[in-house]
């Protein structure tokens, strides 16, 4: 069993997500930074889409009541096991009674804590990923306990050439309503520097606005990575917990790589859009 002694800022259980229910309005959810989450599973020989713990900016503190192998990936939160600093992107042996303190990140927003074996948590509509109105919990609270199946198989992992890195370039394709933008706004969008404003698992708001006053559209499908423009010129980039449809023009669409990278940007971070051809 593991017990959360401190919950952190926004700590959740995530797996790949909840697929096949978007028609009744159920979001995908799932790992915000899918690439780093899957690497944490890969290093422990877990199934690629195993559930794990996602921490945001301020990490939780976890007590282990049985021994296990864990792996932490993503942003460096300066995690400590008891009093020792531990490495990322490598299997770490945790003993019964050990306390894992994730700490805080100074660069990047999210880290992933995978346990060799599997965390027990309710599977709802095919996924353990926390989401309001779907799972009982929205975030992990202080005192929460989770059982996990121990897997004592030998780890075959040798070495992974992975270092955490942030990119200020966000790669995009044209969205269905790209053509509603004026030449001037397209120029602003593709050449100006933007900065991250309010953000969460559902969406990232950008601080800089677009001059165009666009009209709403007839509500239509959106997916994580869809970039919306509101009538007031606000740019919103949808993320993993986003709604299934929306009524704002869809001006751009992020690719998977940039969606993972965006999950690691935080309020105030700078970014540029780079338009790709499909």
């Amino acid at each position, binding site marked *: 069993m593991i017990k959360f002694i401190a919950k952190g800022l926004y700590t959740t259980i995530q797996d790949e997500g909840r697929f096949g229910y978007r028609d009744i309005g159920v979001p995908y959810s799932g790992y915000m930074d899918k690439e780093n989450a899957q690497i944490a599973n890969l290093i422990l020989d877990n199934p690629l889409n195993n559930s794990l713990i996602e921490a945001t900016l301020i990490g939780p503190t976890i007590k282990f009541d049985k021994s296990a192998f864990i792996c932490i990936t993503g942003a460096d939160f300066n995690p400590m096991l008891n009093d020792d600093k531990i490495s990322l992107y490598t299997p770490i042996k945790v003993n019964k009674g050990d306390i894992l303190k994730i700490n805080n990140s100074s660069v990047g927003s999210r880290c992933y804590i995978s346990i060799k074996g599997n965390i027990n948590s309710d599977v709802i509509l095919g996924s353990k990923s926390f989401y309001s109105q779907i799972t009982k919990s929205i975030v992990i609270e202080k005192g929460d306990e989770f059982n996990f199946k121990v897997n004592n198989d030998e780890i075959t992992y040798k070495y992974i050439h992975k270092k955490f890195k942030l990119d200020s370039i966000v790669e995009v394709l044209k969205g269905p309503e790209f053509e509603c933008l004026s030449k001037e706004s397209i120029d602003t969008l593709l050449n100006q520097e933007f900065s991250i404003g309010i953000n969460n698992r559902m969406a990232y708001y950008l601080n800089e606005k677009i001059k165009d006053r666009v009209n709403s559209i007839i509500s*239509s499908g959106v997916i994580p990575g869809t970039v919306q423009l509101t009538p007031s010129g606000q740019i919103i980039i949808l993320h993993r917990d986003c709604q299934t449809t929306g009524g704002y023009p869809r001006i751009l669409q992020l690719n998977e790589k940039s969606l993972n990278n965006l999950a690691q940007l935080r309020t105030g971070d700078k970014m540029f859009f780079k338009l790709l051809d499909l």
Partner: protein
Amino acid sequence: MEFFNLNENSLLITWNSEINSSLTRLISSYKAEILSICKNDIQDCVQSISSILIIIDLNRISISEIVEKIKMIDYKKVNKNDRIKKVWEIPVCYDLEYATDINLISDKNNISVREIIDTHLSKTYDVLSMGFLPGFMYLGKTDKKLYCERKEKPSFKIRKGSIGLALDQTCIYPRQSPGGWNIIGVTPIELFNINSKNPCFSRPGDKIQFVEISKSEYKSFKNRLDKPKLKEL
């Protein structure tokens, strides 16, 4: 029908014809037909008011292959739809405590609050699509007198059960959420129940009839998981 590749594995099909009950039926039938011929190739298929968004399994099919399959569908076969339509009765409290934007619409559209309520109650609406949130229903069309733009700045917190107006549609928020619709009332009905085999009682193609209730009825109703009344057409 227009096709647009949203990304590597997502295809958007849009219809540009007038929004009415027959377009809703046509899109519902297309969705059913697409799912029956490519079921295993499709991860998600999201029906909206005038579009379908298809997310495919790239291990099984490519965007160009699925476009070819969809183009082969016989329009006449699809245009016949014999689904039984249902009318759900949804109680609404229009009290000013919950109808936070009703005065705004009253001013903008030069129509009294009472007339907004009566106009809203005067029609039976089509469920045009579901989405935005689990159980969120887009209903249309509303009377011209109720036409309004979405709010320029979306609200961060809209009350669970809120009834909204935007463009020529009305909607119901199944949970507290941010959103851009103008709020004119609230329903005590539970719209999305995860413990049910079928979390949503309604599907696109069904109909909704609103019925006015008082503030005290809303409050006494509020903590019950009532399904709305159903009439078969």
